[in-house]
C-alpha cells in the first residue's frame, strides 16, 4: 500500500488581521477520498495551499505516514508526493500533452529526442487508467480531456496524495462521473489518497469517504460521509439550520404570450467559424427556460448575440418587436441580463458602486434631465438598492472592484431586477458564488418569474438548472439538440446530449 495517511493538526494562518485558518485539524486516511466542503472564503484554498507548500502556516503540524514534515516550498511537497490539480488548468496551451509532461518532470532534460521520448511516455501512460492523446496540443483538447491530462500529469509525476480543487466544474455529468470514478478506484486500490474540494453534495456523497466542513477558517464538522445527511452538511456550511429556500413550488401555468422569439439564429465565434447554427426557441411570460450544455458549445456567443454584443443573422423579437440590443429597445421592451462573471461583463470595475447601480437608467429622469446629471438622485437610488438587496460594500463611492463576488452579483441583481423586466437573460449567474449568494440569486430569479417575467437561464450546472426551470433545452455544437420539461427529466439522457449525442 503506497497511499499515504496525512494528518493536519492545529493549522492556523493569519493574513494581517484576517484569521484565514483557525486551529484546523483533519485526518486523511490512507487510500480514501476526503472531501473538503465550505463556502467561498471558508479557508479551503488556504488549507490546501499550506499542504502544497505555497503558504507557511503560522502554527500547526503536518504528518505524513506518522512522520512530521516541514513544508517550506512546493519542492518539499513534491518530494513527499503531494500534488494539486487546480481549477484553472496549469497546462501550457500551445504545447502538446507529451511536451507538457516532459516540462513538468522533476528535472528538465538538456536535450530531448522526441521520438524516443514519445515512446517512453506512451509506455508509462499505458499503465494508467486514463487515456489522453499524447501529441495533441492542449489548446485543442476539450475541458474534460484537459482535466484528465492534468490528472495524468500528476500520476506521471508519481504523486501519492492528490488534491482536486473543484475538478468537475467544467465537465459534463458523464465526464465528471468518469474522472471522479477513476480517482476513487485509484484510492481504493491503494495507489493514492485524495482530497476533493467541492461544493456539490451529490459528488461528495458518491465519491468521498470522509468529509470535513470548514466555516470561517474553522473546522465545524468532520467525519465519514455516510454518517452525515445533506441537511447536516448544509447547516454546518452556513451555520444556521437550512430550510430549502428554493421551492420548486406549484406555479401558475405560463401565460400564453410569447415574450422572446428567436428563429434561425446564426452567430459566428471569434475564430470566424459558426458558433450558433440555425437556433430557434421561444420563451413565454412567467416561464423559465433553461439551456444546458458544456461550456464552449455556443452559449457564450448566443448570449452575446441576444444582448447585442455580437453580430448575428436570423430574427429575434421581444413581445413581437424586432430586438437589436439598442438602448432604447432595451428600455422599451424590458430586456435585462445577468451575465456570467458580472464584474467583467455587467459592471465597470473602476467606477463606483453608485455609478454602476445607475448604468441602466442614468440617462433617464430622475437621474438625468436633458444633459444635466442629478447626482443626488443617483446617490439616493444607490442607497435604496443597497439596503433592499443587502449589498455589502465599504461605501457607495467605493470602486466596484473592491466588492466580493457575491456582492457584485447582488448589485447587478439590484440594478437589473428593479427595472421593468419583461425578459431576463441569465447566464451562469451563480458561477463562483458561495452557497448563500447562490440561494439568494435563485430566489430573486424565481420572484421575477412569478411576477410574469420570461426568463432564459443558461447554465453549465445541470443540478442548478433542473432545480429552477420549467423547460430544459440542451445545446451542443451550436444547436438545440434536445428539449424536455423539467419534471421527469432524466439527467443521464440530458448528459448524453450535452456530450454530443445527436438529436434523435
Amino acid at each position, binding site marked *: 500500500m503506497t497511499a499515504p495517511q496525512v494528518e493536519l493538526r492545529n493549522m492556523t494562518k493569519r493574513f494581517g488581521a484576517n484569521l484565514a485558518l483557525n486551529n484546523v485539524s483533519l485526518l486523511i486516511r490512507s487510500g480514501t477520498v476526503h472531501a473538503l466542503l465550505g463556502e467561498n472564503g471558508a479557508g479551503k484554498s488556504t488549507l490546501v495551499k499550506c499542504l502544497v507548500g505555497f503558504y507557511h502556516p503560522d502554527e500547526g503540524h503536518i504528518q505524513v505516514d506518522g512522520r512530521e514534515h516541514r513544508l517550506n516550498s*512546493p*519542492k518539499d511537497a513534491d518530494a513527499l508526493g503531494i500534488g494539486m490539480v*487546480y481549477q*484553472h*488548468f*496549469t*497546462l*501550457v*496551451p*500551445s*504545447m502538446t500533452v507529451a*511536451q507538457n509532461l*516532459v*516540462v*513538468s518532470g522533476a528535472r*528538465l*532534460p*538538456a*536535450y*530531448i*529526442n*522526441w521520438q524516443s521520448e514519445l515512446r517512453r511516455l506512451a509506455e508509462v501512460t499505458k499503465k494508467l487508467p486514463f487515456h489522453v492523446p499524447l501529441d495533441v496540443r492542449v489548446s485543442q483538447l476539450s475541458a474534460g480531456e484537459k482535466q484528465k491530462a492534468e490528472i495524468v500529469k500528476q500520476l506521471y509525476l508519481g504523486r501519492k496524495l492528490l488534491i482536486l480543487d473543484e475538478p468537475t466544474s467544467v465537465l459534463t455529468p458523464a465526464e465528471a462521473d468518469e474522472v471522479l470514478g477513476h480517482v476513487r478506484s485509484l484510492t481504493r486500490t491503494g495507489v493514492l489518497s485524495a482530497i476533493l474540494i467541492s461544493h456539490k453534495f451529490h459528488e461528495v456523497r458518491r465519491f468521498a469517504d470522509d468529509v470535513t466542513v470548514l466555516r470561517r477558517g474553522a473546522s465545524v464538522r468532520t467525519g465519514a460521509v455516510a454518517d452525515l445527511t445533506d441537511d447536516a452538511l448544509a447547516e454546518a456550511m452556513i451555520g444556521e439550520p437550512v430550510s430549502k429556500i428554493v421551492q420548486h413550488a406549484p406555479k401558475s401555468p405560463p401565460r400564453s404570450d410569447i415574450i422572446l422569439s428567436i428563429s434561425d439564429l446564426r452567430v459566428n465565434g*471569434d*475564430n*470566424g467559424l459558426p458558433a450558433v447554427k440555425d437556433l430557434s426557441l421561444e420563451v413565454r411570460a412567467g416561464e423559465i427556460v433553461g439551456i444546458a450544455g458544456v461550456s464552449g458549445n455556443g452559449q457564450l456567443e448566443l448570449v452575446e448575440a441576444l444582448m447585442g454584443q455580437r453580430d448575428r443573422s436570423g430574427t429575434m423579437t421581444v413581445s413581437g418587436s424586432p430586438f437589436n440590443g439598442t438602448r432604447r429597445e432595451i428600455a422599451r421592451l424590458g430586456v435585462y441580463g445577468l451575465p456570467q462573471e458580472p464584474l467583467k461583463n455587467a459592471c465597470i470595475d473602476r467606477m463606483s458602486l453608485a455609478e454602476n447601480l445607475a448604468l441602466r437608467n442614468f440617462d433617464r429622469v430622475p437621474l438625468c434631465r436633458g444633459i444635466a446629471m442629478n447626482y443626488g438622485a443617483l446617490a439616493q437610488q444607490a442607497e435604496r438598492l443597497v439596503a433592499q438587496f443587502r449589498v455589502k460594500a465599504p461605501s457607495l463611492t467605493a470602486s466596484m472592484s473592491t466588492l466580493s463576488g457575491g456582492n457584485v452579483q447582488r448589485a447587478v441583481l439590484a440594478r437589473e431586477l428593479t427595472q421593468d423586466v419583461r425578459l431576463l437573460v441569465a447566464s451562469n449567474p451563480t458561477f463562483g458564488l458561495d452557497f448563500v449568494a447562490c440561494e439568494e440569486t435563485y430566489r430573486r430569479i424565481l420572484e421575477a418569474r412569478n411576477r410574469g417575467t420570461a426568463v432564459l437561464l443558461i447554465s453549465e450546472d445541470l443540478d442548478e438548472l433542473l432545480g429552477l426551470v420549467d423547460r430544459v433545452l440542451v445545446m451542443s455544437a451550436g444547436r438545440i439538440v434536445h428539449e424536455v420539461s423539467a419534471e421527469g427529466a432524466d439527467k443521464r439522457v440530458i448528459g448524453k446530449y450535452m456530450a454530443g449525442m445527436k438529436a434523435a
Partner: protein
Amino acid sequence: MDSTSIGWFSLPLAILGGAIRVSTPFIFVSIGELITEKSGRINLGLEGTLMLGAMAGYAISYLSGSPWLGVLSAGLAGMAFGLLHGLLCSVKRVNDTAIGISLIVLGTGLAFFLGKPLIEPKAPPLPSIGLGFWSTVPQVRAALDVNALFFVGIALAFAVYLFLNRTGWGLMLRTVGDSEDAARALGFPVLRVRIIATMAGGFLAGIGGSFLSLSYPGSWSEGLSSGQGIMAVALVIFARWRSVNALGASLLFGGAGALGPALQGIGVTGYYYLFNAAPYILTLAIMVASTSRAAPFADAPGELKLHR
C-alpha cells in the same frame, strides 16, 4: 560573356544579391525579437539597440582592427541594452511599450553622441565570401558576394529552432511565454527567464546593427538604419514566431528593400521613392493581413496577450 549581354536578367540577379545583403540584419534582429517574444515580452526598443550595436561595432573594429571583435562588442552592447529593458520591465506597473520606445530614443541618441568622432574614419569591414567565382559576369559575381554574417544567420535560424523544440531550456522558455500560471506552478523563475531572453534578443539585435556599419552600407553615419528594428516586430508576427520562417521572411523583406537600388541599376529612375518604400508597404500589408478577425494570432505566445 559581355556584361551588357545579360540584359534584363541583371534585375533578378540584383534583387537576389540585394536580398541576401539587406536581409542579414533582419535575420538577426527578428530572431532576437522572436526569442524575447517567446518568453512573453515585446521589446520595441530594438531600433535603438541596433544603432548602438552599429556604433559600438564600428568603433571597436576601427580601434582594434578586427571586424569580428567589433561584431562581438556590438552584441555585448546590445545585450546590455536588453538587460536594461528586461530589468525596467520587471518592475510592477511599468508599461513595456513605453520602455521600448524610450529605449529607441536612448539608444539612437547614445549612438549618435558617442559616434560623432567615427563619421570620418574608415573601419575594417567584415569579410565576404565570393560565391560567384564560377562566373565571369561582374553582375553575377557582385550578386553572389555573400557576407559571412549571412551564413551565421542561417545557422542561427536552425540553431534556434533546435533550441526551442528539442531542449529543456527551450521548453521552459515557451512555457514562461505561453502561460505564466503554468510556469509558476512548475516553479520556473519567470522574471529571470524573461530578462535573459531579452538580453539574448538584444545581443542578436546588436550583431544585426554591426552588419549595417561593417558590411553594408559599411560606414558609420546617422542615417544608417532604415527602421529595421521596428520592422522586425512585424516580421516576427509574419513568421508566426518560428525561426526558420523568420529566415524566409527576412529574405523577402531584403528583396523588397533591394528593389529600389536594383531598378536604378538597370536604368529605371522613375518612381524612386515609391520603390524604396517597398519594404514599408510590405510591412503594412502584412500587418493588415495578419490581423484578420477570423484567425488572430493563434500561434502567438499566450502571455503577449495579442488575442482577445
